[in-house]
């Protein structure tokens, strides 16, 4: 079943919208973007700016490289471990240095982009609209969420953010258990 998520969904609206749909139909990618956006938002506006710069860029580079390699790999264990760790960081509401956040964001973006790229064949027209769709969706989602988190300082909202991180981490942990069992 996870292999199915790796392939591009045909929305019928063209490559750009296929790319956007891909992010929203791939739970692990969506959880990673959500987790990173919450984490960056917790670090304040600087974290949000760093996320907006690095995540779409690294995701796009990973995608381009992955499309060249064209392997049929999803690396489910690695991606699950990664978004679980991001969820734990959000739940703990840790203050990270800019370097650590940049490394986490860029590394995650490269890996997830690479896996996206493995199973996305280059467009016949030569225009990488699907890649543009994925990267745009990642950018818009991450900026919307991180900006909201950075701007809202109410206690209740901060708790909700940490609970969301905890849910991401818990889902990741359980998922890891199921993957090991399988």
């Amino acid at each position, binding site marked *: *079943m996870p292999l199915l998520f790796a392939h591009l969904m045909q929305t019928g609206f063209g490559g750009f919208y296929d790319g956007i749909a891909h992010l929203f139909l791939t739970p692990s990618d969506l959880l990673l973007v959500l987790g990173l956006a919450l984490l960056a938002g917790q670090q304040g506006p600087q974290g949000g700016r760093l996320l907006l710069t690095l995540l779409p860029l690294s995701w796009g580079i990973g995608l381009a490289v992955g499309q060249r390699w064209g392997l049929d790999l999803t690396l*489910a264990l690695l991606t699950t471990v990664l978004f679980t760790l991001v969820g734990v960081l959000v739940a703990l509401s840790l203050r990270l240095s800019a370097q650590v956040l940049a490394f986490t964001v860029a590394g995650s973006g490269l890996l997830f982009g690479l896996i996206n790229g493995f199973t996305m064949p280059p467009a016949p027209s030569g225009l990488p609209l699907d890649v543009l769709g994925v990267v745009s969706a990642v950018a818009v989602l991450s900026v919307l969420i991180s900006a909201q988190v950075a701007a809202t300082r109410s206690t209740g909202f901060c708790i909700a953010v940490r609970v969301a991180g*905890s849910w991401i981490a818990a889902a990741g942990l*359980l998922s890891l258990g199921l993957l090991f069992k399988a």
Partner: protein
Amino acid sequence: MRWRWLVLALLLSLLPSGALAHVPEGGASSVMAGLLHPVTGIDHVVAMVAVGLWGAVLGAPAIWLLPVAFPMVMAFGGVLGLLDLPLPGVETGIALSALVLGVLVMLQQRLPLTVAAVLVGLFALLHGYAHGMELPDGADALLFSLAFVGATGLLHLVGIGLGEARRLAWGHRLLQVVGAVIAVVGVWSLVQLGGA
């Protein structure tokens, strides 16, 4: 004006029946299985609600610490169960969790935060382990886990919501009644275990 919203809500409530006519498959069946798993055992349901209720009784910071910590500890217990690692007294511990948490809610007992966290953490581990042992094979791991964790979290929210009633004039009495019902379910679960 309100009756219009009521009519709209009633009409909207008719819509899902079309979806229910179909048997969920693939990802949809995993989501359904994950959502239903935590709410199909009464001992689990009352314990999850009791965690939220007791968090509300304890007030800040426990009211947010418990819902943040509980899912992660429960998932850790779930992994232990999935990997078949031995953990003694799981069923007894689960029955006791309902009894102990029910009594604590009924008496509106405020224990020190560390004691409360250790107690709830232990119960989370036991509940997670039991869930992990029973998780179905073949489910989509991530979708199932997400739905499972979400359903458990929503049960906590129900408890926190009920607990907030303590601010009302009749709220303390309500908490006593709900706590007593939870404790009775715990006793009933213990009796069932003894009879088995």
